[in-house]
């Protein structure tokens, strides 16, 4: 499993989206998110985007008020994950038009759906924005 979890957290440390690819109990999740948020949000722009945590790595990137944090196995390619985060943001941007924290808050299930299009079982399965968005848009039309 390459990707273990994807988190979106705002500046205040509130989780805006959490997607796990392995089962964790609520308590474990709460603890994990707390630790990670404390670790990553304290870092500044001049510091690198990789943090070692427990037995894996966190690759994170900040867009405006939102932090995108991806937990990956140690031998995962950090730069590729950064590219993946960027792709995710671009995709959401294309869909929502100038995406912001509120878009994700109010369309959480859509954001999840997009993620599901991109990542499956911790592996990245789709990297084309058009391909990712087709089913999302289709769904929007039908409902």
């Amino acid at each position: 499993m390459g990707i273990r979890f994807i988190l979106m957290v705002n500046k205040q440390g509130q989780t805006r989206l959490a997607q796990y690819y392995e089962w964790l109990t609520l308590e474990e999740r709460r603890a994990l998110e707390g630790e990670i948020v404390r670790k990553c949000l304290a870092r500044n722009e001049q510091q690198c985007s990789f943090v070692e945590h427990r037995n894996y790595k966190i690759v994170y990137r900040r867009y405006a008020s939102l932090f995108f944090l991806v937990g990956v196995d140690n031998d995962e390619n950090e730069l590729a994950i950064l590219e993946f985060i960027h792709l995710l943001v671009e995709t959401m941007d294309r869909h929502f038009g100038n995406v912001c924290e509120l878009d994700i808050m109010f369309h959480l299930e859509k954001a999840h759906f997009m993620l599901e299009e991109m990542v499956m079982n911790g592996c990245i399965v789709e990297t084309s924005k058009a391909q990712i968005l087709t089913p999302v848009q289709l769904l929007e039309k039908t409902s």
Partner: protein
Amino acid sequence: MSGPSLMDSLFQRTLEDLIKGLRQQLIGEQAFISKALEEIRKEIKSTDLSTKSTALLKLCYLSNLHFHDMSFAAFHALEVLSSPRFSHKKIAYHAISLSFHDSTPVLLLITNHLRKDLTSTNEFEVSLSLQCLSRIANVDLARDLTPEVFTLLSSNKLYVRKRAVAVVLRVFEKYPDSVRVCFKRLVENLENYDPQILSAVVGVFSELACKDPRSYLPLAPEFYKILVDSKSNWISIKVLKIFAKLAPLEPRLANRVVEPICYLMRKTGAKSLLFECVRTVVTSFSEYESAVRLAVGKIREFMVDEDPNLKYLGLHALSIVASKHLWVVSENKEVVIKSLSDPDPNIKIESLRLVMAMVSEHNVAEISKVLVNYALKSDPLFCNEILGSILSTCSRNVYEIIVDFDWYVSLLGEMSRIPHCQMGEEIENQLVDIGLRVKDVRLELVRVARDLLIDPALLGNSFLHRVLSAAAWVSGEYVEFSRNPLELMEALLQPRTSLLPPSIMAIYIQSAFKVLVFCLHTCFVRGGSTAGVSASASYESFDDLSVENGAGSTVAHGQTCTSAPITNESIVNLLKLVELALSPLLGSHDVEVQERARNLLGFVDLIKLEALNSSGQEENDSEQKGVEATKIIRMVHDAFSKELGPVSLSAQGKVPVPDGLTLNENLGDLETICSDIELPSSNTFSFGYPSEEKDVSSFSNLQIKEDSGQSNESTSLLAEHRKRHGLYYLPSGKSEVISNDYPPANDPALQGDNNDTASDLVKLTAESLVPKRKPNHSKPRPVVVKLDEADEKPVAVKHPESRDDSLSGAVLDILFGSEDILPTSSRSNLPSSNRKGKEKQHMITQVESKENVVGDGNSSSRRRKDHSHGKERRHRKKNAEERNETDRKEKESSSNHPRRQKSRQRAEEPLKVPPQTSVIPDFLL
């Protein structure tokens, strides 16, 4: 309340309402949420699926972002799942993916839902159910749904097929037998040209290869082809990961792959792919000089980049190279040392690891000095990081790189005085360990211990207590090296020791006991007896240490006598001091402290009588008593002066079991006997009351007993050490190779750059890394005691997880010719109620007929695996020879290789030798 009314449904709050409501609650969010949960609980019981699904959606939101349990809705999620509407289904699948896990009770009920959707004509429904399966599949689900996944693996809808490929990973992991069914199709997908499919398949294989690379060696030609042809960086990265695992297993493969990787490294513009190439080369192709040089060039570019990400990764890659090619680190040392003062703590840690990798016996002193200065200036976290890595590097392999132990011991003392130091435990261990192992250093050790003990300020720092406990132990145990035992005694009994925790207090008291006995012995037995010459002679006779130490300790001893002559008067004062300091401890709540204080006071009372006698009435009076006292002192001293040596962990095992002793006998009855004995034995320790008359012999017996009891404490200290340090013999040649174990990473931060120290370091390492083999030490390295037998650490018997094992076994089966008979149990595992059962049977036979039936029964048994590898290798060799021939004949360009390799693989199969014995597959469930 049963279900909600129609009105409730009509005016149900949507998710959007919920979120808006939540945003308006500045305080009282919890109350709002619990109210919402109340509503959800009601709504979710509704018979109207829209109401139900909206409730479920809201619940998902609260569970996902506010950590509210949603397990109560598991069954409702299933109900929504059965809705014909896609939007409902989607919500239900989302909820299930979020909340279901292996022990969810209703998991059993989902199988048929999933099966229905997996065979649906709507590709989005199929995709949803596959997505869900990838999250929640357990053994049963994986087994029951294998046929459906198998069908979807060759679906003509790419959208579905790539998902089916991705889900296979989970299915294999949960139910290894499914490999027999699906693997062939998975491999077929490797030959697909669609990048979507390829990306998914390669992703799956890179995960599989991580767990057990050997099984996937036969697929190397396919991977090679993808590596050469791939246009997608993502796919290339994944294939490189696979090759990083495969190449070390098969040198010929490495030979072949290294060129394309270097080519990729030169031409690619993508940093991620470039870094992956670099990492692959430095981890798995480190013996290819030119490739490593190329990679190192790239690493340098990374390290000097402005981007902290690239800098970090560059340093990280460098630390991978460092284990095999130290020259690379020395070539780049300026950058590394400059990074030590980077604003990013993670980068600092990486560079610290690299600096430690450069340490050798020639530069250890200089580097440590500079690093300790760094530590003084840096923040607590990084400071301890530095100290920790110095400690672990220096103690590696029984202090392999330390030549000058006097220096190291004083460094330990210096380190413990650094304000942020929290490495007390490690320093404690090393101080005691060195004391035991290195005789020559004891003089210095005692000096360092004294300096620590005598400083009252240190007692206030709780991080230092462990160090102080070691210092106390050392000064008690090796008191004969002390210049001034009286001063030591005062240090051990100073009032501020009350700040110590009881366990360390106990060590202090015990050490004070030893020092006291030493003083008394010097005064009465040795000093009292007669003049200097004979004294030193008798000293040497009883103290075997000094015999071996020669000059050093006798000088020290001489100083003892000159600097602080122990007179009767001083002894009297000493005894008074002991009484004064320890009497309050008689009421201590800690048993250990109380008991030891009592022991010591008892002893003092006994001796005091004699000492006062001898001082007051001169020697002529009560000769008898004086003699008795000396006797006692001598006995106790002898008991203490027995040297403690390191003992091997396995020493106990070497004691032969005497004949007639059954070790396994049940000793349960002993307990009752022991409880009888307990009382009288505790009575015998009443010698704390000195007024009682005792005959000397019984007393000294007790004393010895007591001593042995207390030395248990120190032996347990020792045992702890022995456990920590494996005791090995040093290789006689001083090894230059720096081992690659790094101290664990934490995250610290260092402020203030110090360019002067940095340049110092550069210079030092520059000097030290030039391979000058001339030892620049005037002093020879002292003997470090090691035990004969290396304590073989119990080799952790690796039990590969049975599941993985059976997985790779199954993979091997498929790849190396499959069995002609499908294991019956796996057939019987198929659900009989399965309406597609027949179809599945059919499919299986198809698969088998497609596979080359060679009658090779080597199903996954562990013993047979090696066998099959061997066979495989032989084939490869043969094929390689063939290929070489064709190479010479055809001289084709590299892009044509894959085809040839594939034909090679085809040719490989008929070569298979049928096995001699049939083996029962051991992975059947």
